[in-house]
């Protein structure tokens, strides 16, 4: 299991982040990326010596300043489920690509993208293109929106 997969799974969960400078941030993980940059919401910042505290509605923390992250125990169980279901889901995900453009050549370029991204992203994209796609070719219309 990859540390970043665990972190990704921890989205929406509360966590504690200690920075290299000793400050700690308690908050709910909104988002993270492959650099371990993180976006927290409802944050409480604690100074290094633990005697001063700040509340902040949200904050962005650069990954390379992080020392460690403490995540709720149950998150690790969710990772396994998620990686399993993602593997199951992958092949049908290809079906989503046809949507939007009728032609295969033009779709080929975005195909890679469609596979790599999460379900939400693919869904949002499909919607945006939905109008013109439905007009130009009936082919794309039927798939992916299942």
């Amino acid at each position, binding site marked *: 299991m990859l*540390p970043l997969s665990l972190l990704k799974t921890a989205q929406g969960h509360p966590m504690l982040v200690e920075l290299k400078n000793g400050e700690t941030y308690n908050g709910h993980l909104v988002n993270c990326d492959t650099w371990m940059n993180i976006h927290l919401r409802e944050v409480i910042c604690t100074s290094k010596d633990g005697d001063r505290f700040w509340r902040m509605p949200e904050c962005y923390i650069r*990954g390379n300043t992080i020392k460690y992250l403490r995540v709720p125990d149950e998150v690790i169980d969710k990772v396994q489920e998620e990686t399993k279901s993602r593997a199951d889901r992958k092949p049908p995900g290809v079906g989503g690509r046809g949507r939007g453009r009728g032609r295969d050549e033009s779709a080929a370029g975005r195909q890679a993208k469609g596979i790599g991204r999460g379900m939400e992203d693919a869904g949002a994209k499909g919607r945006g293109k939905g109008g013109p796609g439905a007009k130009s070719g009936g082919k794309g219309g039927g798939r992916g929106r299942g």
Partner: protein
Amino acid sequence: MSTGLGLESLVDQTISVITNDGRNIVGVLRGFDQATNLILDESHERVYSTKEGVQQLVLGLYIIRGDNISVVGELDEDLDNNLDMSKLRAHPLKPVVH
């Protein structure tokens, strides 16, 4: 590459990690990546002191950033279980100075 091979054999085993700030964290390795970021499950910190025995602080599930790791070591659980932590005395480690 070589770091990856080395840690693969330790997955699901109890390991001992020394971090750059001089902490000793013991836990079960659940995962790692190329940057030596680690997932430590059921982890606890061992706080050493010359005045009293070793204190163990429960930490739980941790992701430790590779930048912050000095040493990763295998832990012999049988040997470890036979240690009387309350009798151990040691100087705390100083942080790594860059």
